[in-house]
């Protein structure tokens, strides 16, 4: 904990990252109270209104829907799907890594060969291929990017398990008769925590971008749900007349992802002494 306090005191960029993430989280949580209008209400009389239009501080989109409200509700979707997908990938990946590293032998072989196969695909292509099989949609999009990230966590946890397994304190715990399961859950898993926290923070940004990318291609969140990726996709047809409709959702994705990346960099420097 003192490490963390020291980190934020020392690294202004990590603090800035934390601030960005916190602001986005608060905006997402308070969206129903902060949004001036219902994000889905269509007003064809006010299509593509510019920024600072009366009643629409950030203007409107091609259906006359309030952009500020859609951005705020979009923050909910982005953060929710990004965090859920990350949690899913971290959970399944860590379990795979723990099994592979702790049990070893053929279990390790099977898991690592499966991970190699997943890694044989370019990151985003695999997500697209999974969507091709499951069909477009919010939940399928989350599953797709989660699956793609399983190898990332699997490898981190397996490597940590393998190094912790050989330490003297695990050996002595084993000699004292501590069961293998308890060893895995207490000593080994606890040592995986710091690298996992760093990995999760660094991964959330990529997850949010990947999910927004899928929605941008029409393969993730489906209209009319207000989502940054699909907002960007629709805005392309009106780029000449209403550039702000494209600029704003992209800026929102960028700032959120930047926040997580800066925070993750800071945490890595603080928690992972090898990289200091």
């Amino acid at each position, binding site marked *: 904990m003192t490490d963390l306090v020291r980190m934020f005191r020392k690294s202004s*960029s990590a603090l800035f990252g934390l601030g960005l993430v916190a602001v986005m989280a608060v905006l997402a949580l308070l969206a129903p109270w902060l949004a001036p209008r219902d994000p889905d209400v269509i007003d064809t009389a006010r299509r593509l209104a510019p920024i600072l239009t009366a009643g629409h501080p950030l203007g409107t989109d091609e259906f006359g829907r309030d952009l500020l409200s859609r951005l705020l509700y979009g923050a909910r979707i982005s953060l929710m799907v990004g965090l859920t997908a990350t949690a899913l990938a971290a959970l399944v990946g860590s379990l795979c890594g723990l099994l592979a590293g702790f049990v070893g032998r053929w279990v390790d072989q099977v898991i690592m*060969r*499966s991970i*190699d*196969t997943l890694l*044989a*695909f*370019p*990151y*985003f*292509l*695999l997500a*697209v*291929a999974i*969507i*091709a*099989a*499951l*069909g*477009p949609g919010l939940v399928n999009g989350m599953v797709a990017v989660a699956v793609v990230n399983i190898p990332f966590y699997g490898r981190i946890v397996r490597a940590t398990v393998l190094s912790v397994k050989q330490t003297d304190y695990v050996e002595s715990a084993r000699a004292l008769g501590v069961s293998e399961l308890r060893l895995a859950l207490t000593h080994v898993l606890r040592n995986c925590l710091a690298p996992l926290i760093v990995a999760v923070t660094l991964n959330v*940004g990529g997850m949010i*971008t990947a999910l*927004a*990318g899928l929605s*941008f*291609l*029409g*393969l993730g969140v489906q209209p009319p749900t207000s989502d940054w*990726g699909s907002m*960007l996709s629709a*805005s*392309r047809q009106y*780029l*000449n007349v209403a*550039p702000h409709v*494209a*600029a704003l*959702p*992209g800026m929102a*994705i*960028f700032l959120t*992802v*930047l926040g997580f*990346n*800066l925070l993750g*960099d800071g945490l890595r420097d603080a928690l992972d002494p090898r*990289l200091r």
Partner: protein
Amino acid sequence: MAAVGGGGLPAYALRRLLLAVPVLFGVSVLVFAVLHLAPGDPAAIMLGAQATKEDVARLHRDLGLDQPLVIQYVRWMGHVLRGDLGRSIPLGRAVLPEVLLRFKATLVLTTGALLIAILLGLAAGIVSAVRQYTWLDRISMGVAVTGVSLPVFWTGIMLILLFALQLQWFPSSGMSSPYGSGVADVLWHLVLPAVTLGTASAAALARLTRSSVLEIIRQDYVRSARAKGLAERAVIARHVLKNSINPIITVLGLQVGFLLGGAILTETVFSWPGLGSMMVRAIQARDYPLVQGGVLLIATTFVLVNLVVDLLYAVFDPRIRYD
């Protein structure tokens, strides 16, 4: 790891080639599964709502969907190995020539982007590491973290807005002008998409290169080289950069994967006639053979790139051949 003893580069290359076989097998199983994980009857989905029962039954038979899965896989693989990737129903054409044609455009885009990434990313990464904690390091790493946080599809749209719509320096879409031809015309169309995809990759490359080079700089032999009074320039060139080649090649290999995946988004933004934009349309049209063909081609390319990366390792670092 394989047995100690090696036998030099050819033996290592052969061992590495054999290791790629199970990975390619895994890739083929996953690509095969794309059609079979789909909920419902793929034949009915591919033909759409207007299809008659007889049409669906015929396609069902043609695709061999009434056979057990293992038989279906073996049969499909047999076709793939003979270069037959099936037929696209909406296009009414064989898949292979279609994906190969599109793949050329994707290769043009990714090569352009890779060159930009190498030029910007490697330079920034090396300079940052060598001049760690100076203002140069801070600025280039600040730019890099901004770059990795920018979604490529948004960067592309903003570049179109500025350089195509406002300044009108470059075209906003396509790979060639209706009446233009030749390499110059393609290059002119390539600038914005390649910059979009390349800068994202350059940012990631710069960060990874920096940490790889820093790891080398902290090695004992670098300290010894400094201690024996070698000029800093010589230490960097002879000891640091030479030993950084392998980690940098690793990072470059990974970036090819990022570029091939990111091309899907970039091609869609710029209507670039590559495999990525084709696959997105194919997914929406439920054109499974086309999707499978595209995924198989890109994934196989990536496996081969990684193979080349591993072989380059052994060329630059003879120790690896005997591992």
